[in-house]
């Protein structure tokens, strides 16, 4: 017999509830493909911005998507997208550090 701990049963319930709705499945598919903003999503469905936000919140509580601020927009993305973005930003940050170390080396070589 498989004993499902209460906590994970609760999170499974959240997951299935989140996926039980067609609009939410569609939002999830878009979040996987392109990280749309909440307003872009609201323009796609015949429902209010607030209603779309509620759907996104249900997906968020189930751990399926995350929201992140981008300027004044809220982007909806999956962890996959988040990792890809983190990798991109770390690449930029690496270049920044390489330049910084090269400049520090110049300052040190000048003997102050």
């Amino acid at each position: 017999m498989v004993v499902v701990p209460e906590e994970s049963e609760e999170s499974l319930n959240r997951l299935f509830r989140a996926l039980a709705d067609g609009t939410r499945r569609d939002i999830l598919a878009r979040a996987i493909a392109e990280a749309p903003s909440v307003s872009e999503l609201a323009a796609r469905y015949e429902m209010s911005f607030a209603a779309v936000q509620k759907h996104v919140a249900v997906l968020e509580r189930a751990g399926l998507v995350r929201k992140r601020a981008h300027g004044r927009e809220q982007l909806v993305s999956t962890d996959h997208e988040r990792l890809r973005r983190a990798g991109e930003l770390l690449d930029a940050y690496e270049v920044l550090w390489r330049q910084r170390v090269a400049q520090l080396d110049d300052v040190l070589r000048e003997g102050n």
Partner: protein
Amino acid sequence: MPITSVTKDPEKLSLTVVAEFPVPRKRLWEAWADPRQLERFWGPPFAPATFTRHDFRVGGRAEYFLSGPNGEKWADSWKFTAVNPIDSFEVRDGEANAADENLPSSMTFTFETTPTGSRLTHVTRFSGVEAMEKTIPGMEEGFRAAMPQLDALLEL
């Protein structure tokens, strides 16, 4: 070339840089302790840094801004959470934008003596992707503008 390794961890949102320099550890430390020297290397070439405050003691703050090529200004501040002269220091970054307490990242700097001079080990830990978006502002655009130099830099 001073960089000996760069390690990136996208899962943990951290970056570790190890660099060695042909100068004594005390000299390397001074470059970080003196804001006039620090501002000569902290900002990228397209956006030099100006430090308006550098209170280098535990609980002290540093404040600076980067000046971009089109007149942009990116301000940031640090709070020094540890300062152990010539061994190490730590800062919390992004305290100026502390409206969201999840934003700040932390940076640690460790200095060691080596047979040929000194070694700096730096670790940045971002608290989230959003913290990265705020701490690396406009950097990507800047790097794209600096693309021709990029390949040369990565080969260093």
